[in-house]
């Protein structure tokens, strides 16, 4: 099973970087992705992110989420076909001219998919290469309150636990003759036998988790700096390149608006 959004212990370019640099990386990629509507540019950006993953020795881990991205892309394109028709009609999905596939809708769907893929993959690079402890420490230094910090940490930490547990619950209910229902109402109804145990078990865990965090002094006591990540040459170089790229991008965008 592919573990969604987890730190992977490895050695690589991104693993050696300071979490702050990687946060800057996400920020720059995020800005470029959200401001851009140009498909060739988004493709180039996606290529650059994948090349960086390759350079960081984590391409395989980043590509683990391809399935999710492909599923989402189909959903996005279907939604835009229905909601944003425009441009020329290429063909129809259903006979009799129903569900026409238009160039405008395709364009919008592909743009959405590319943006989604770039953001997911950039975030993947960050999470795969950053120990949560370093992340918490960095965010703490940046002034993010420790409670919000812990919320983020715990959300990441429990994704695989919930995945494993959901599978066990699903199997237990299958053995009781459970089947996913038919039709919309049936489907909604069939969620309860899996979701109720999953949520109840998670809630009963919250109490112990809270006590554990408090007893470790995580919310109250000051931390001794230990094995701190330092900004090194790689960080400076990478941050420099990102800065230049962002400046160039903004300059180009401004020129386009003025011109």
């Amino acid at each position, binding site marked *: 099973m592919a573990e969604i959004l987890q730190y992977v212990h490895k050695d690589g370019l991104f693993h050696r970087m300071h979490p702050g640099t990687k946060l800057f990386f996400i920020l720059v990629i995020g800005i470029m992705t959200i401001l851009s509507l140009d498909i060739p540019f988004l493709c180039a950006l996606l290529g650059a992110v994948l090349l960086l993953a390759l350079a960081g020795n984590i391409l395989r881990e980043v590509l683990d989420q391809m399935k999710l991205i492909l599923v989402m892309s189909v959903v996005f394109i279907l939604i835009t076909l229905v909601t944003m028709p425009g441009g020329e009609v290429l063909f129809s999905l259903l006979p009799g001219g129903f569900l026409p596939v238009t160039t405008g809708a395709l364009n919008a769907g592909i743009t959405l998919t590319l943006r989604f893929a770039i953001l997911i993959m950039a975030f993947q690079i960050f999470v795969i290469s950053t120990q949560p*402890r370093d992340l918490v420490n960095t965010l703490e230094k940046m002034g993010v309150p420790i409670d919000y910090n812990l919320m983020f940490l715990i959300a*990441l930490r429990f994704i695989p636990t919930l995945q494993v547990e959901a599978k066990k619950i699903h199997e237990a209910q*299958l*053995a009781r003759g459970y089947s996913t229902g038919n039709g919309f109402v049936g489907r909604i109804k069939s969620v309860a036998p899996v979701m109720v145990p999953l949520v109840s078990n998670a809630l009963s865990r919250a109490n112990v988790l809270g006590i554990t965090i*408090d007893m470790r*002094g995580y919310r109250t*006591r*000051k931390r001794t700096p230990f094995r701190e990540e330092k900004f090194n040459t790689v960080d400076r170089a990478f941050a420099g390149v990102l800065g230049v790229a962002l400046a160039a991008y903004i300059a180009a965008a401004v020129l386009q608006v003025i011109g």
Partner: protein
Amino acid sequence: MITLENVSYRYQRGERDAVSDVSLAVAPGECIMVTGPSGAGKTTLCMAASGILEHEFEGEKSGRVTINGRDAKDYPGLPEIAAHVSLVFDDPEAQLIFTTVEEEILSALERRGLSPAEIEERLSSILEITRLGTLKDRPPYALSGGQKQRVALAAALALGTDIVILDEPTAELDEEGTAGIVSVLLDLKAHGKTILLTEHKYSHFRDLVDRLVVMEGGRFRAIGPPSSLVDDRSVAEILVPDFSGIRRMFPAQSANAGDPVISVRDLDYLYGDVPALAGVSLDICPGEFVAIVGENGSGKTTLIKHFIGLLHAARGSVTVDGKDAKATPVSELAHSVGLVFQNPDHMFFADTVAEEVMFGITNLGIPHPEEVLEKALSRCRLSGARDLYPRWLSRGERQRLAIACVLAMQPKVIVLDEPTTGLDGRESREVMEILKHLQGEGRAVVMVTHNHQMAAECADRIVTMKAGRVVSDTRTVA
């Protein structure tokens, strides 16, 4: 040290005191083990002794708790108490916050005002004492239950307290995991730590325990050195399961009574490219009581999942009640095979015990549902609990409810994965008696367990697995 003087506590909306007028003094360097049936108040006692009741729980409290000479009330909060007492709970998953073993331990070490050199030194000594050195970069999801619990213990040790309180630390662990915890605790005791522990598995902790407390209904039934208590029969049956006479409840049916209900031939199964089962062949006949024993990872659970089509053979065949398990949907196989998983909390979702049992009956369209429901409840001694909320039942009752849910689906074979996990001696015996009754009705019972003693005393046939193979298949002598 910790003292409790006449402590009583009633949870908000509780109908009776969870602990009632208990007094206990835990001396420095002493190890006290508290045991008793589920619902006896053991967890509440841990919460009281660690000051958590005082600071985190509403409800009616009386009496006095002191921790290292200071009243628990006078500590400002849990972080200050944590300088004296550390805690380990039964669910290892809930105590791991980070994504590698080392981070988990560091998270506690870094908040104690130590110098970096001291942190480094303690980290390596804790990794050594808990035998986690080779696992230090692993994420929680890549650890076994026993390893996770050792990480929770390591993080507790990182707090550097003299007193360690453990609430059923081995409840969810197998033999190997339990042994790992016991050996770490023996080391800690040798280092002079004070240990207060609640447990069911007295026989595993024999060498550790100075004093034993037996609780029932919120009170201390007996307290003293183990040697003075184990002779009391009513105490002994809680401490160590007594399965005597179980096998003779019903005479074992003559072997091969009829055609096999489950027939496994040359079964291979791979997880990814790791072989989990290799060349397994096995027949299970009506009226048989079979125990499948073996260590963690020997393939026991993988094998039984094939019986109901949750896993499909890579090679070989599994025939269930004349049907090819590979080609038959799970919902169809559920008519023939009932599977009770290890953790009952993975199945409960309804508001009442009766609704929970009805789920399977309705799914399979069993005739005379009301009658079947009543029979399943009474067989599992739950008739009085039919309107209760399943998750509020005791561990022993929840296990029996899980069996009732599967039983009500009227399978020809009932398969149980570690049915006595987390149960005390008496509750374990109750489960075995239910299984014996089912065998008496002509059903086949298959029980997966790592408890060789229980297998030898209750089952008529023992199948031993090792590294994905059946290494022996013998009949026990009645």
